């Protein structure tokens, strides 16, 4: 059951990703991206990480993408015209070869490093909020706080850039 869910959600995720880059209208692309993020949440759920799955939906699909859509709809995101030129012969090659190289490299690396593969037997409490909190608030507290400072800086930067030039407080 979990294996089926894992591959099904993975397929949905890939479909969404392809749709995102293939669609011409910005709103459609955003919708495909939402589908892709939901697929990723499904993958998290299938590998016994319910907290990550829920956070994926809550933060990315539920908040970040809502703001994306909001802005795209407000600014009437562009709709690209259809491609008239026939694709050159090297376009599919350029698409497939790097993907294949990355895939082979990843498989070889996983084999070499003898990482534990996908198994349904997760340790007790794995992926539950309590365990996540222990990691975030204990072991990785410093990194966690650093990231929040990065976000704060980004927020202030966005505010500073978005403001009218002449009304900047330091001018």
């Amino acid at each position, binding site marked *: 059951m979990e294996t089926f869910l894992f591959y099904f959600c993975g397929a949905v995720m890939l479909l969404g990703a392809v749709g995102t880059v293939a669609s011409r209208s910005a709103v459609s692309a955003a919708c495909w991206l939402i589908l892709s993020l939901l697929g990723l949440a499904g993958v998290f759920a299938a590998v016994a990480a319910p907290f990550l799955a829920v956070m994926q939906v809550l933060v990315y699909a539920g908040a970040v993408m809502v703001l994306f859509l*909001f802005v795209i*709809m407000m600014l009437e995101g562009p709709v690209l015209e259809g491609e008239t030129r026939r694709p050159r012969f090297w376009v599919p090659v350029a698409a497939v070869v790097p993907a294949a190289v990355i895939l082979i490299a990843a498989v070889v690396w996983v084999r070499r490093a003898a990482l534990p593969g996908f198994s349904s037997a997760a340790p007790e409490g794995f992926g539950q909020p309590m365990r996540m909190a222990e990691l975030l608030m204990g072991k990785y507290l410093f990194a966690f706080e650093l990231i929040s400072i990065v976000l704060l800086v980004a927020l202030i930067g966005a505010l500073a850039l978005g403001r009218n030039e002449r009304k900047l407080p330091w001018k």
Partner: protein
Amino acid sequence: MLPVILEALLKIIFFFILIMGFVVVLIWGERKGSAFIQDRTGPNRASIGGIRLAGLVHPVADVFKLLFKEDVAPSQRHPFLYAFAPWLGMVVAMTTYTVIPFGDFLQIGDKVYPMVVADLEIGMLFVLAISSLATYGIALGGWASNSKYTFLGSMRATAQMVSYEITMGLALMGLFLVFGSLRLTDIVGGQGELIWGWLPKWGVVVQPLGFLLFMGAIYAETNRTPFDMSERDSEIVAGYHTEYSSMKFALFFMAEYAHMVVAAALIATLYFGGYQIPWLPRPVLEGHAGPILTGLLVAGGLCSIWIGTLYFRRARREKGWYNDAREREPGVLGTAAVVGGLVMLGSLLLQPWNIGAGGGSIFVSLIQTGAFIGKLVFFAWLFIWVRWTVPSFRYDQVMHLGWKIMLPAGLVNLVVTALWLAAVHR
């Protein structure tokens, strides 16, 4: 595997019937309640063979009207998203229910069935995640219709829902701290205790400010007055569903009421003890199951017969008023009430006071589910009550309230709760 799926399916069906039934009753309640508040009569015309049930037949007539209406759609719509948006709202409303407990357990023989579809460890986060997707139904629906009014409605709704989601999360965090769990069954279980031996440890008692914030945020999330920015009639026609008709409109309409039922269930579960009856915990109820059942049957039977006689008096009084099928109504209802009352009294012959331990357990489970539904009804009615009593906010007022008042208040609530808990548990 199969019994598990069957059990889950039965609970899902229970919730499905509960929601759809409530949607019908709430639409009726909205019309009849607004009429009551505005001193009107309200809907009373639709009838089946003269039986009007105070307007309850109207929703049935509505269903047929909406099913057979022409589906008018704007020609410049986005074909897929236009059809997809109403469906999404309904799916989101229906999915949220899976983690809400409607009782603690049901014991039949040796088997114990928990009365919740999926008792997730992350419980409440799941509800927040799924309900955050509800925004898309409204945003995409308004955008895909390709009309200025629907677009304005969906923009307003999106801005409002995103703003108030944060307050909702902050308000809930205080509650999670107090009960030490995200799991809804734990939160409800914790509310069965008493503080100082007499005060029920309900969420509203330990988190009064959190309750007010949550209540305000959830009214904004369901887009109900005073936060009906997305469908303000006097400004933007009907908001995001202006361009929808027939069953697609009906889905939006039903989704609004289904969201109301979810919201009412959440308020009852998180802040008013869910299925818990204050001062009457399960062991006490089980110990006196026989006498309580007998008392309920006698009281219910007598009340029902009394109501029946009232109907008969009305039938005598109204004789010759209408000269059509409507005159049958009080007589039919009165007969039904008297027969129901006699059945309740007649069941005393089965000796309900000898209900036994197993039967008592089932009876208590039913009573607790009844308590949950009772609280749900009250908070659903509160939505209607507020809508027809309180004037709605202007757009800037909504944003001001959300970002400058409720968000800081939520932070203060969280910090105070954390400090207080740290002081108590030190």
